[in-house]
């Protein structure tokens, strides 16, 4: 593959979950991912930002091949994911590391760290125990764990949340991935260790020239840890741009609300109420017609936003937003 081609591409991607009552009666589909398009370049770090339930984890799991898309496709290094079988699929899973939200849930509780880090190497055919030990020690150093001998003999519950997440990251790195998908890697951790883990991921991404897809619901952390941002709402990407451009010139009313809800720390924050759009994200079983944000949008245009789905506009260079306000006919 040429260096210029994207590493991963999602085209018209849909992941719907069938909802059944009593196990057989079809009630409808939860449209967790509902028409998503993007391409990730080699070596870039992107953030997917959105509220819980907007489909971030479903998207991550679809990219990992853990859910089969209902429609559309994912290609990785030019190969379409759904065509990969057996060994080829194994190889794909080694090339895409997965760091999940809950590090404790991601680690087998009955294995000590040495054993749980040996496991993936054994599965992927590293037979020589000394070679495995060597690689394990190298990645533990890379994730900045000190007192390695002590850590290797511990079980997951004996480690702090930050240490557990470092082990999860180490495990993902062992197989020399080209990409890492980190699904809210710090949301279960204390504020004081979040920055440390995010810095670690960012440095590893730069040093190894990995592609990093970093999922979060917290816009305040993305500036330093991503090159580009995708904002998701109700199963869709509603806005995308390079990180500074998006944070400094948000275009979509949803992104604007998210940014208005967070303020940099200041004693005056306690004195004023924040502007928060009313209501809650829509049901993905029955999303509203038109723009999915229109029932909560302070700028919704009656007769347009509640009727027609907004196409993608480019209100600024390299900055895309799916919102009718950018349509010239509405004179934004």
């Amino acid at each position: 593959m040429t260096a210029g081609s994207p590493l991963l591409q999602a085209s018209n991607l849909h992941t719907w979950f069938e909802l059944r009552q009593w196990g057989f009666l079809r009630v409808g589909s939860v449209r967790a991912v509902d028409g998503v398009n993007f391409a990730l370049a080699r070596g870039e770090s992107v953030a997917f930002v959105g509220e819980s339930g907007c489909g971030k984890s479903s998207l991550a799991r679809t990219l990992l091949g853990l859910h089969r898309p209902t429609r559309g496709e994912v290609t990785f290094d030019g190969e379409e994911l759904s065509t990969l079988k057996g060994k080829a699929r194994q190889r794909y899973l080694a090339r895409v590391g997965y760091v999940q939200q809950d590090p404790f849930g991601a680690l087998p509780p009955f294995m000590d760290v040495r054993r749980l880090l040996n496991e993936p190497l054994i599965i992927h055919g590293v037979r020589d125990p000394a070679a495995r030990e060597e690689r394990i020690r190298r990645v533990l150093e890379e994730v900045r764990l000190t007192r390695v001998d002590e850590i290797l003999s511990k079980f997951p519950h004996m480690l702090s949340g930050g240490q557990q997440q470092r082990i999860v990251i180490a495990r993902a790195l062992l197989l020399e991935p080209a990409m890492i998908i980190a699904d809210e890697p710090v949301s279960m951790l204390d504020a004081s260790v979040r920055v440390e883990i995010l810095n670690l991921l960012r440095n590893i991404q730069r040093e190894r020239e990995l592609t990093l897809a970093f999922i979060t619901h917290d816009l305040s952390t993305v500036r330093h840890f991503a090159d580009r941002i995708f904002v998701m709402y109700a199963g869709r990407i509603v806005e995308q741009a390079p990180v500074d451009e998006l944070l400094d010139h948000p275009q979509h009313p949803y992104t604007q609300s998210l940014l208005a809800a967070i303020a940099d720390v200041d004693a005056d924050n306690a004195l004023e109420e924040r502007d928060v759009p009313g209501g809650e994200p829509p049901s993905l079983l029955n999303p509203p017609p038109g723009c999915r944000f229109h029932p909560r949008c302070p700028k919704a245009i009656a007769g347009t936003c509640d009727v027609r789905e907004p196409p993608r506009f480019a209100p600024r260079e390299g900055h895309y937003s799916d919102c009718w306000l950018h349509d010239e006919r509405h004179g934004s």
Partner: protein
Amino acid sequence: MTDATETLLRVEDLRLHYQTRRGVARAVDGVSFDLRRNEALVILGESGCGKSSLAKALMRVLPRNVQHFGGHVMLGETDIMALNDERFRREIQWNRIALVMQAAMNALNPVVRVGEQVAEPLRVHRGWSKERALERVAETFRKVGVSTDFIQRYPFELSGGMRQRVVLAMALVTEPDLVILDEPTSALDVLTQAAIMNVLKRIKRDEGTSFILITHDVATSSELADRVALMYAGQIVEFSDARQFFHDPAHPYSKMLMDSVPRLHQPEAPGHIPGEPPDLINPPAGCRFADRCPSRFERCDRDPDAFSLDERRRVRCWLHEGEDA
């Protein structure tokens, strides 16, 4: 009419130690502070530093393995540590101090309608009739922004944000003097968090309620705080006015913590605090933060006093010795 600057709560040398198999865990280890009426005090600190234990000690909801529980707590004119359990339950719990426990929104009874659950403190602690209690519940629901139609709903029918408002209503329904909130928004989304913080600001303004808000998140703390108490390993290391704490923190730990806060409009990346907090079972003899402190010097091998920098600011750090007011 009460004086707005009147002290509501005065806590002195509060201790709560647990018996564990490995030894005694000093979760709350000599905590002192005071709170005025209609003030919001934020207790800030990393997980495991004793924030929830402090809340439980104030509300006297204690686990069975308590090894030592002591100190002085004055609520208005009442020495509440001197009350026996029976009187404490009858007079203080829910009536004058209410506590929203960490993750309470996930602990609602799934088979009881939320209206009845919110009415419970009135029925149990005040002996009110169901009708009278439900009327008050409706009033409280309006204050916290929950539709009164929800009185008849079950918890699973409500979103996370609505359930959090419901447990908040439960704490407010008896109109207590002091409401303690343990990590009330940590599990919620940004927009829902902001909406809940708006509700708290409104209640504080309109009802004159006093709050102790517990969180590990500095950004959240700034949405309500009049004053900040930073905890570290079972102790308060800095107690300051919110403005001073956020803009000119005094303790080295406070400074590092403030530097680690991600800021949307700041070009530099945030810093972090290396290392881990000490074990509460055998905390180091001197300053508990010394191992991670960039300003450590010989004196730090001895336990520092809490030095008062001015009338309302105390810092537990040898660097401030002699600045004592």
